[in-house]
C-alpha cells in the first residue's frame, strides 16, 4: 500500500500543535523542506528536538513555531551562532518577531551529543533510561536535572543516565525509499534510525522514489523499514541548504548568508516572507534558487560504491 503523499498532506496529518518534533540528520540530510512546510502551516507550541538545531530550527524558532528546544549543540556549524534562537534566550521579551504566535521565552533542555543519541536509543528500545560515561564533574546535570547518576549493579561504579526521548513525529530525509517507506541512505547516518524507531509517527522525505526491487536488492542498505513509516514524500532538493551525499553539496554560501540575515529581526522576517511564506512548496523554492546555483552544488563526478553479490538461493 503506497504511503506516498504530498509534503503538505504529510505535515498536516502528522505534525500537530504541541508535538515533540525531531527533524534529524547530523549535518547531512536535514529536511529543510519539512521545516518550511511546518512554518507555512503555522504549527505552534512545538518542542523541537535535534542534536544540532542548525539553521532549520533557527528558522522555525524565528517563525514562532516552537516553545522549547531539546538539543546538544546550538550553532551555525563553521560560521557562528544561531541568532534567532539566541535572541529568544538572551533577550526573551524582544526575541520573538512581531506577530509570532509564541512570544514566550524559549525553553531549553540541554544534553551532550552522546546524551541525545542515548535518549533516542532509549526511546527506540523502550528502555526507561540509557547509561553513558559522560557528565562526570560537569555543570550539565545541574543545568538539566534529567541527567541523573546511576549506580552499576556490578561494583561501586556510577555512570550517568539520560531519559528516553520519544518524539511524536520524526522527519528524516534520505536518498531513496519505496512507496511503502522502506528507506535507504548512505553517507553520514547520524541518529536518524534511532530517532525514527523512537517516534510515534515517521515522515520520510526522499530525493528519489524507487521500486521495491531496488530496496530488496540491497537489504543491508535499508536504514528505516516501511513498518514504522507513516508517510513518504518525494521532494528533490528537500534538504537544501543541507546536502545529500551523492546528489548535492552543502550550500555553504547560504549558511554564511544566514548569519547576516538572522542577526536582525526584520531581515529574518523578510527572508521568511520571501523564501517560506512566499512560495507554495519546495518546487517553487527550488525554482527560485535558480538553475545556476543548483548546478554549482552538484558533485563534480560520480563515486560509485560498486555492487556486491547476495547470491540466489533457491
Amino acid at each position: 500500500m503506497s504511503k506516498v503523499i504530498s509534503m503538505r498532506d504529510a505535515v498536516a496529518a502528522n505534525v500537530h500543535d504541541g508535538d515533540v518534533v525531531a527533524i534529524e540528520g547530523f549535518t547531512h540530510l536535514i529536511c529543510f523542506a519539512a521545516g518550511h512546510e511546518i512554518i507555512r502551516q503555522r504549527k505552534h507550541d512545538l518542542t523541537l528536538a535535534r542534536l544540532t538545531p542548525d539553521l532549520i530550527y533557527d528558522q522555525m524558532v524565528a517563525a514562532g513555531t516552537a516553545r522549547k528546544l531539546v538539543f546538544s549543540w546550538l550553532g551555525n556549524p563553521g560560521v557562528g551562532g544561531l541568532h534567532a534562537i539566541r535572541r529568544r534566550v538572551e533577550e526573551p521579551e524582544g526575541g520573538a518577531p512581531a506577530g509570532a504566535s509564541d512570544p514566550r521565552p524559549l525553553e531549553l533542555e540541554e544534553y551532550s551529543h552522546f546524551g541525545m543519541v542515548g535518549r533516542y536509543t532509549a526511546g527506540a528500545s523502550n528502555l526507561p533510561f540509557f547509561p553513558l560515561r559522560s557528565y562526570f564533574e560537569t555543570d550539565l546535570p545541574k543545568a538539566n536535572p534529567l541527567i541523573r547518576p546511576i549506580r552499576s549493579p556490578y561494583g561501586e561504579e556510577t555512570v550517568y543516565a539520560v531519559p528516553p526521548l520519544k518524539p511524536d513525529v520524526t522527519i528524516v530525509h534520505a536518498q531513496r525509499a519505496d512507496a511503502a517507506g522502506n528507506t535507504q541512505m548512505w553517507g553520514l547516518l547520524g541518529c536518524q534510525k534511532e530517532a525514527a524507531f523512537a517516534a510515534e509517527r515517521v515522515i520520510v522525505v526522499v530525493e528519489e522514489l524507487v521500486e521495491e526491487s531496488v530496496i530488496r536488492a540491497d537489504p543491508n542498505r535499508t536504514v528505516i523499514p516501511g513498518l514504522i513509516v507513516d508517510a513518504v514524500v518525494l521532494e528533490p532538493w528537500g534538504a537544501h541548504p543541507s546536502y545529500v551525499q551523492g546528489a548535492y553539496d552543502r550550500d555553504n554560501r547560504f549558511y554564511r548568508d544566514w548569519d547576516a540575515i538572522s542577526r536582525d529581526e526584520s531581515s529574518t522576517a523578510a527572508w521568511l516572507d520571501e523564501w517560506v511564506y512566499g512560495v507554495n512548496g519546495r518546487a517553487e523554492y527550488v525554482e527560485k534558487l535558480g538553475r545556476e546555483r543548483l548546478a554549482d552544488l552538484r558533485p563534480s563526478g560520480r563515486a560509485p560504491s560498486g555492487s556486491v553479490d547476495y547470491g540466489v538461493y533457491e
Partner: protein
Amino acid sequence: MSAPSDAAAFSKSEMMIVAAARELAGQRVCFVGVGLPNIAVNLARLTVAPELELVYESGAFGAKPARLPLSIGDPTIVTGATAAVSMFELFSFYLQGGLVDVGFLGAAQIDRFGNINSTVIGDYEHPKTRLPGSGGACEIAINARRVFVIMRQSKRSFVDRIDFRTSPGNLGGAEAAARIRREEGWLGRGPSVVVTDLGIYHFDESGEMRLDSIHPGVTLEQVRETIGWEPRVADPLATTPAPTAKELRLIREELDPEAAYTK
C-alpha cells in the same frame, strides 16, 4: 510419525500447522523461529494473513525466500529481503521497541498458565536433559504483544510444574500476571494461544489454558491422557475445521515438499 486422524486426508502435524496458521488472521508483524512456526507463518501469509510481515530472529525483515528456509539463518531469507539488521537492532528496536505483534514459540514444557521451559529437564545444576535454553524466547515472551505457542502435547511436555521457567506466561494466574506486567512495564500481554497436534487452547479469564477446539478425529480422552493436569474444556467444545484442500496443497507442494516437518 503421528497417526493421522483420517489417514487418507492429513496428518496430525498438518492439522497443527493449519490451525496455527489460521490463528494468525488479522496479525501484522510476527517474530519467527524456524521449523513448525516458519511453515505455519508462511501458510498464513498465503491464506488468512496476506499482509503478515515476518521478523526473523536472525535479523532478516520482509523476507521473500525463494525456497522454504531450512533454518532461521538460511541465506535465502536475506536475498530479496527489505532489510537485514544486526542483532542489536533486532532485539532493541524491533522486539523491545514493541513492533512485534506475535512471538511464536515452541517449548519442551508448558504449564497450565502458559509458562514455558526450554532450558533443562531436572535440576539446573545437574540436569537430566540439557535443552538449548532461551535463545530469544525469554525476551520474546516479555516484549512481543502476544505469544503463540506451537508444540505437540504429551505427559512430559504438558506438566503440572515446569522444571525451569525460561519464558514467563501468565505466572500463577491472570490477575497477578497482569499486575506484574503493568508494574514492570512489559509490552507483552502474554500467551494468547497454544496449538498442539490435538487441539487449540486459549486462556480464560483466570489465565489458565482452556481447550476451545479439538482437532477432527481426536477424542477428549486422548487430550486428557497427554496432559499433566485436569484440563479446562470449553462448553460447547468446537471441532477444528479440517485442513482444506488448498491448505494441504500449499504445505505439501510449496512449504514442505520433503515433509521435513509435517510427517
